[in-house]
């Protein structure tokens, strides 16, 4: 078992967990992820390594409860753990000294952009960060992002915190004002957000590196379930990615593939909630 040693409720649906996994912690680099499985019946769930502590031998995972597996994960407590945890998976993000880099995180993926932004900062770059969420409640790690960014812009869809805007607005402003200066944009978040960032940057001819979150099965290159089209070529996100040049991604295909199991996912949530109610009724929870 991979034990949970710390748990924090960031908001009603966002949870943070620190898990003992020394071998993964030792190797982890920004941009990589792990696959976890709660128990024998569990699904294999990919999660970004939001942080790691090589000395303590732990990795930090931040996730949003969106379906059966993440809801179930949210009920785990310190002392409990995951039956399986494999990683670090995927290629690390390429981090060089480029000058100025924009780092964008949307919703729970702010935790995923964090190690990347911190890596760029440590490599001597000027880091301009933009983070956003639907509302204040769904923002995570604002202080952490503040600490490692040269400039931080916070936006929410409803204006309940920071500026009322989508992340693309401050992005456009930055690009317009400082296009010559900005070497690269990194964006992690829901597919529509990443797609919009790519479209925003298009006229400026600036690379946008995105981290794709397809459905995964094994995470080792064995099934092809995670495939996407990048510049017309089929690529496996788990082994060829998860980072790709956003300008080359076939977004519509990606989003269609993400939605393939929607019916089953809804059914699984309903089934899970029913079971929880039954257990609660029996007084077992």
């Amino acid at each position, binding site marked *: 078992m991979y034990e949970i040693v710390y748990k924090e409720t960031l908001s009603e649906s966002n949870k943070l967990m620190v898990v003992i996994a020394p*071998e*993964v912690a030792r*190797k982890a680099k920004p941009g990589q992820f792990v696959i976890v*499985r709660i128990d024998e*019946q*569990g*699904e*294999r769930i990919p999660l970004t390594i939001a942080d790691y502590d090589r000395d303590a031998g732990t990795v930090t995972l931040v996730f949003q409860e969106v379906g*059966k*597996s993440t809801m179930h994960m949210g009920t785990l407590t310190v002392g409990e753990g995951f*039956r*399986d*945890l*494999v*990683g*670090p*998976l995927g290629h690390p993000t390429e981090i060089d000294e480029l000058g100025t880099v924009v780092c964008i995180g949307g919703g729970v993926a702010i935790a995923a952009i964090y190690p990347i932004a911190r890596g760029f900062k440590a490599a001597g770059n000027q880091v301009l960060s933009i983070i956003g969420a639907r509302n204040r409640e769904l923002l995570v790690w604002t202080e952490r992002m503040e600490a490692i960014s040269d400039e931080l812009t916070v936006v929410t869809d409803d204006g309940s915190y920071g500026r009322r805007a989508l992340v693309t607005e401050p992005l456009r402003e930055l690009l317009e004002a400082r296009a010559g200066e900005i070497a690269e944009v990194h964006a992690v978040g829901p597919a529509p957000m990443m797609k919009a960032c790519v479209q925003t940057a298009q006229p400026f001819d600036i690379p946008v590196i995105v981290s794709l979150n397809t459905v995964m*099965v*094994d995470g*080792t*290159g*064995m*099934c*092809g*379930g995670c*495939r*996407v*089209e990048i510049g017309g070529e*089929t690529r496996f996100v788990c*082994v060829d990615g998860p980072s790709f040049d956003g300008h080359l991604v076939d977004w*519509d*295909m990606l989003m*269609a*593939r993400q939605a*393939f*199991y929607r019916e*089953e*996912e809804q*059914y*699984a949530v309903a*089934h*899970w909630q029913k079971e929880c109610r039954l257990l609660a009724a029996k007084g077992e929870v």
Partner: protein
Amino acid sequence: MSKFSMKERLEIPRQEMPTQNPEARRANFAEVTLGYTPELMLREAQRCLQCREPACVKGCPVGVKIPEFIAALCDEDLPRAVAEMKARNVMPAICGRVCPQETQCEALCILAKRGEPVAIGRLERYVGDYELEERVCPSSVRATPTGRRVAIVGSGPAGLTCAAALAGKGHDVTVFEALQSLGGVLGYGIPEFRLPKQVVQDEIDCLVQGLEIEVRLNTLIGRTFTVEELLEEEGYEAIFISSGAGLPNMVRIPGINLNGVMSANEFLTRVNLKKGYRFPEYDTPVKVGKKVAVIGAGNVAMDAARCALRLGTMRAQSNGGVPPEVHIVYRRSMDEVPARYEEFEHAREEGVHFNFLVNPVRIYGNERRAVSGMRVQRMELGEPDSSGRRRPLPIPGAEYDMDVDMVIMALGTRPNPLVFQDAARLERTKWGTVVADEETGKTTACPIWAGGDVVTGAATVISAMGAGQRAAASIDAYLGTGEW
């Protein structure tokens, strides 16, 4: 043994093995073949002529002592049969079920000339099942510990066989497995109804019992550790790479990335490893279409087709829908079907449709980017190609559409290159397989050995086990003498 004359032996017909009837089994995942009863076993065993120079043995990649184990069966001395078997093959319950006997041992049996070889595989399975049921696993006594450390990469039949043999010699063996459970293809590929997972589990337990083999699941070599790190930092003195050939080949035809097109690996992994057929009790969902096309006609294709048939039928029965239509689409003819003959027959009995001499050229999608049909090209057979099989050639202009809503690709696999991260000194072929000596398993880089599908490309369970055994002998010799 001498109860029967030659003539009497020749008069006994080959004994069929009882099976679940096709109607019932297409709606469940229980094992199709039920195994011999003691009576059937005995009659079949009595057919063996006990040849002094048994040709059958030459057809077995590990040289199972076939007449010897069958003689023990005739004497109804099962412990002896187990011992004779285990001298060469440590997984008889598995191999008896999945070996392509008709092209291996049984092909060369002297009685094959008369059309009915001894059912060596079925007898082998009987021995294996007896052993598992009675728990008479020969207690593999571990030799005096040597303190020498060997790493095995991948826990399929090649890796496990090698691990058991080396641990038996007293070496300190660690098996690194990327997935959540042991067994490789035996666990995630071959379905329950053909190879029950309990049999796999029991036979593996039996194999490693008494041997202190360290198992590290969820450890992906190439990422969690690289091969070179295992040698330089983790203190292993020898490495056996048995990571199989798990990377699916996806053809480049229009529509290949639509929803509803998947590799057989994805489909079978969802069904077998993650028990998708028990969703929502198990969390991983698996979809199945109403009209499914499986491209290819090897074991993998048969397995995918029969899983699709079962899932679809079970669903139709639970919600009152129509049972699915499942098609095998193969560009050669029936004579070239590479699957085990028994699986091909079983698939036909269950109602899988076979479309020979057709090849997909494009997959159509609807507005939701899901499969809505497939265009196929008719083929004819030309001259034999390098594999000796007649080459399929398109018949110009002969194309038509098939009405399907799911397409499963079962067109072969290649080794997964992840494991070679940082191991550039390992020579590989243009197909991505590792170059290794057939007799010893030595690669071009000391002290690294390799065997099984990662060397041969997709092959068989028993050939992978043979490679594991031979490599173990070579590794043991190397650890003893230090000579590469």
